[in-house]
């Protein structure tokens, strides 16, 4: 099928671009490889969170009423605000990549900074929520003390499972946010130096994918944790 020497040596493709690593033929191959790698990594992330989601689903259908009851102790306004904050951060992340596509390095830096600010806002609100739960003795463990609403079935141990899951899921999510903010800050300097152009901005794209993924996790966490007891 291939009769000629199609393969090219390193450096020949992609106009000998400085970002080309030695073992790739050209920038296109390098870009495709890292984008695919990022997607495969996100696949593992789906299943990483998936273990917690499965645990949630099983206990949710088992302790249906108590989960709805315990969910009322979460602050829907904070949760909703955080959802909006994350959605906006996804927008600015997408706009940062768009700025790279039109070669506007200062715009990239600006959008990255806004995205980080949104991320930190999210984490700040999360901290306030955690502090509130701590003060109300809703952190699972020896100091857990759940006051059942009057006139309703009372199963503090099932409520504790709800809060265990709440802290595991939002905690793991917050950890991903912290990593995300770290990754964004790592992008700042090269962006400022004009390293990311319409020709090559793959790190920006890959970290963007990660950021959007973390957003998606929260899109599911919000209704599952905050809204099940709202009515």
């Amino acid at each position: 099928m291939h009769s000629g020497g199609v393969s090219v040596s390193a450096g020949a493709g992609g106009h000998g671009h400085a970002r080309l690593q030695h073992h790739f033929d050209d920038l296109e191959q390098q870009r495709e490889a890292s984008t695919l790698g990022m997607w495969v990594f996100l696949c593992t992330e789906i299943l990483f969170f998936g273990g917690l989601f499965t645990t949630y689903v099983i206990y949710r259908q088992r302790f249906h009423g108590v989960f709805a009851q315990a969910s009322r102790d979460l602050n829907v306004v904070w949760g909703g605000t955080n959802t909006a904050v994350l959605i906006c951060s996804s927008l600015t992340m997408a706009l940062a990549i768009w700025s790279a596509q039109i070669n506007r390095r200062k715009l990239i830096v600006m959008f990255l900074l806004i995205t980080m600010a949104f991320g930190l806002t999210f984490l700040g609100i999360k901290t306030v929520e955690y502090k509130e739960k701590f003060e109300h003795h809703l952190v699972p463990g020896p100091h857990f003390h759940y006051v059942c609403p009057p006139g309703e079935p009372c199963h503090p141990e099932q409520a504790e499972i709800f809060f265990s899951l709440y802290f595991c899921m939002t905690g793991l999510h917050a950890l991903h946010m912290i990593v995300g903010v770290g990754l964004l800050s790592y992008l700042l300097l090269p962006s400022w130096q004009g390293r990311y152009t319409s020709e090559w901005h793959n790190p920006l794209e890959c970290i963007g994918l990660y950021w959007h993924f973390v957003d998606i996790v929260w899109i599911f966490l919000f209704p599952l944790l905050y809204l099940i007891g709202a009515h």
Partner: protein
Amino acid sequence: MAEHASAAHTPSRKPYFLTCAFLLVMTLITYVVAKFDLGPLNDIVALGIAVLKATAVVLFFMHVRHSSKLTKLTVVSGFLWLAFMIFITLSDYWTRGWLDTFASGR
């Protein structure tokens, strides 16, 4: 593979703003709907909206709309395997009590 943004034509910002608006509106809707008790539909509606929102993020923010089949396959298989895990585990829990029901029914 990724979005088809050549230097020749300037990529549009519009889809991003539309997606963001859609997501915010859906968040509002899911919040309002949750105020009403729809019985067993509660969870289905809430999750349905979440799936819609996630799909919008994947397709537009993450550019999967313009991505290769391989990327689409990767995304789908990730969620498919999650579905395997959840539903096969559930198949055990859903059928746990059956034996007793049938035995006592006789």
